[in-house]
């Protein structure tokens, strides 16, 4: 009996270690599960089994513990890491995050600044500093979105190839309603990672919001083109498996396809209604092309809403489709 229980706890620990290792490769933040399994590993003395993985394990569990407010565990992990890597910027980040989690952002800000003075090329520290600045209210002398923009611009001037930084910059600008600046940042993002269709979608939406419908139209089309092949095969597979369209789109949806369709519909509606003014300014977008695209989009949207696989619960979807499409027809 004793032997079986110890064996099962052994397999438990091993399974937990394996699960945690897999989790480290994924962007999903499952703090509760991570802490649960991390505590199991620590209690059962599984730390010796980790070997070189110990340090990434401690970092992972420490961060998750901060999310849950388990200060003792978080401090245990951080201090152990700090004693092993006293000069590491990554560990310094963890310590700063611990201060942030305790609700002391100004202290964390000072800490990051002093650490950055020691190692000015640490990209992780610089990013943490910016996130603290952003999270601070405007009333703080060093905080607020404007200060965050200043810091980000300086950051990106040095670390140009940091897509996350550009993304953040675009987001802050858009928050402040500075859409043209946001568009600039998104263009840089597209230059850095031209294969990501979600960035193009964000670009298109920002353009539309800024009123640059011509460019938004092109960008939406680009999104459609980028996930076009996927859509075709998925539409086909859907009819085979008798899945509802919405379900399929939610589960293994073809990226930003549906969203781009809606955006494109708005663009074509706008373009067709204000045809005379745009056709003179930009000869590239021709009315007949817009019309055929409009037809295509309408058809695809109707397919999404009125496919025979859908059940009655999608009345809202149909209503909204009808609303949008009726605007264009009038």
């Amino acid at each position, binding site marked *: 009996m004793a032997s079986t229980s110890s064996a099962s706890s052994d397999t438990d620990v091993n399974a937990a270690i394996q699960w945690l290792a897999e989790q480290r490769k994924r962007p999903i933040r499952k703090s509760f599960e991570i802490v649960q399994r991390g505590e199991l590993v620590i209690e059962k003395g599984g730390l010796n089994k980790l070997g070189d993985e110990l340090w990434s394990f401690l970092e992972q569990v420490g961060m998750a513990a901060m999310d849950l407010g388990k200060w003792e565990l978080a401090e245990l992990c951080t201090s152990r890491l700090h004693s092993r890597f006293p000069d590491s910027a990554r560990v310094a980040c963890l310590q700063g995050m611990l201060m942030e989690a305790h609700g002391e952002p100004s202290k964390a800000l000072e800490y990051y600044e002093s650490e950055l003075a020691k190692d000015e090329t640490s990209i992780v520290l610089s990013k943490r500093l910016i996130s603290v600045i952003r999270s601070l209210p405007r009333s703080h002398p060093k905080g607020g979105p404007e200060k965050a923009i200043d810091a980000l611009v300086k950051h990106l001037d040095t670390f140009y190839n940091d897509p996350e930084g550009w993304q953040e910059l675009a987001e802050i600008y858009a928050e402040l309603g500075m859409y043209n600046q946001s568009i600039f940042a998104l263009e840089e993002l597209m230059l850095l990672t031209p294969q990501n269709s979600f960035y193009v979608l964000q670009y298109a939406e920002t353009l539309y919001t800024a009123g640059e419908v011509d*460019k938004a139209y092109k960008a939406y089309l680009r999104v459609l083109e980028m996930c076009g092949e996927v859509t075709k095969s998925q539409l086909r597979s859907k009819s085979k498996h008798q899945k509802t369209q919405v379900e399929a789109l939610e589960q293994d949806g073809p990226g930003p396809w549906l969203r781009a369709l809606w955006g494109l519909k708005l663009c074509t509606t706008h373009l067709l209604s204000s045809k005379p003014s745009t056709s003179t300014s930009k000869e590239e977008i021709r009315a007949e092309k*817009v019309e055929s695209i409009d037809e295509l989009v309408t058809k695809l949207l109707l397919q999404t809403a009125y496919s025979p696989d859908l059940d009655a619960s999608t009345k809202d979807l149909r209503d909204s489709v009808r609303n949008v499409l009726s605007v264009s027809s009038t």
Partner: protein
Amino acid sequence: MKLSEQNLFLDSAMRDWVLIPILIVMILVGVLRHNVTKLIDSKPKKLSSLALREQRILTRAGALRFNHFVIPPSSFLSRRSFLIQKLSDGSYLQPKSGGGDEKEGGSDQSTPNPFDPANMDGMMDQMKKSMVMMVPQTVIMGWINFFFSGFVLIKLPFPLTLRFKLMLQRGIDTPDLDVTWVSSLSWYFLNLFGLNAIYRLLLGDDNAADGTRDMASMSGAGAVNAMQSAPGQAPDFKKLHLAERDNLELAGLDLLELSDNGGGKKNQTSSLDAKNRWVGDGIEDRVLALYGEI
């Protein structure tokens, strides 16, 4: 055939006190060297943020050059002119510490000072590493030469041609001895070159125990490497920036020619800016074709 029949009877004490000790000492020295190298291995030198900035502007220009087709032409052209200006006036260059700005374009810049403290660090590092390699090898070789010179230690189980005599019977001057007999000094060399697999087993893949790698880098290959790395340590960013600027200027021209060949008819009337092709050109047709509408 007479040679192959010759029989030597080796004392088993020779195996216990010479063959195995040499092997063990070699392995232990390898492990020791691995650890010492790890200990003296200095961290890679950190770049200052200005040096990083100086490099990243090149990345930026490169990204623009390669992926400019994903952004609208107007955005591309404004970025292009911005980068061309910044690259040519050198505002992204790291400010030089010395007053060497006056000697622009002189031959002085092409030959970096070999005693520059920045370069000395790298040289010192290499020196340390090769010392860690050289010292134990010299000591062991001296030890073997002093105590075990002229010992025949093992017999290889397979026949070899006469050419191997020089390699396998170092330190024994008997021309008639069969080639398969191995002397102690040769045993040392066999170990030196053959223990790599054992080190990999003991210390993992990227170990510093293997002496032959250092030796290879010391001779021929090392000389070439040193020649390349000396200027490579401090590349002239001023020149790199100017070269990148030229590339950027060409990127625009390239596009102009492309659009002339491809859709010349369509773009004849449009302005120079609109001629730059990007993904937005003709995208309606492509999307329509994707859904089989045309």
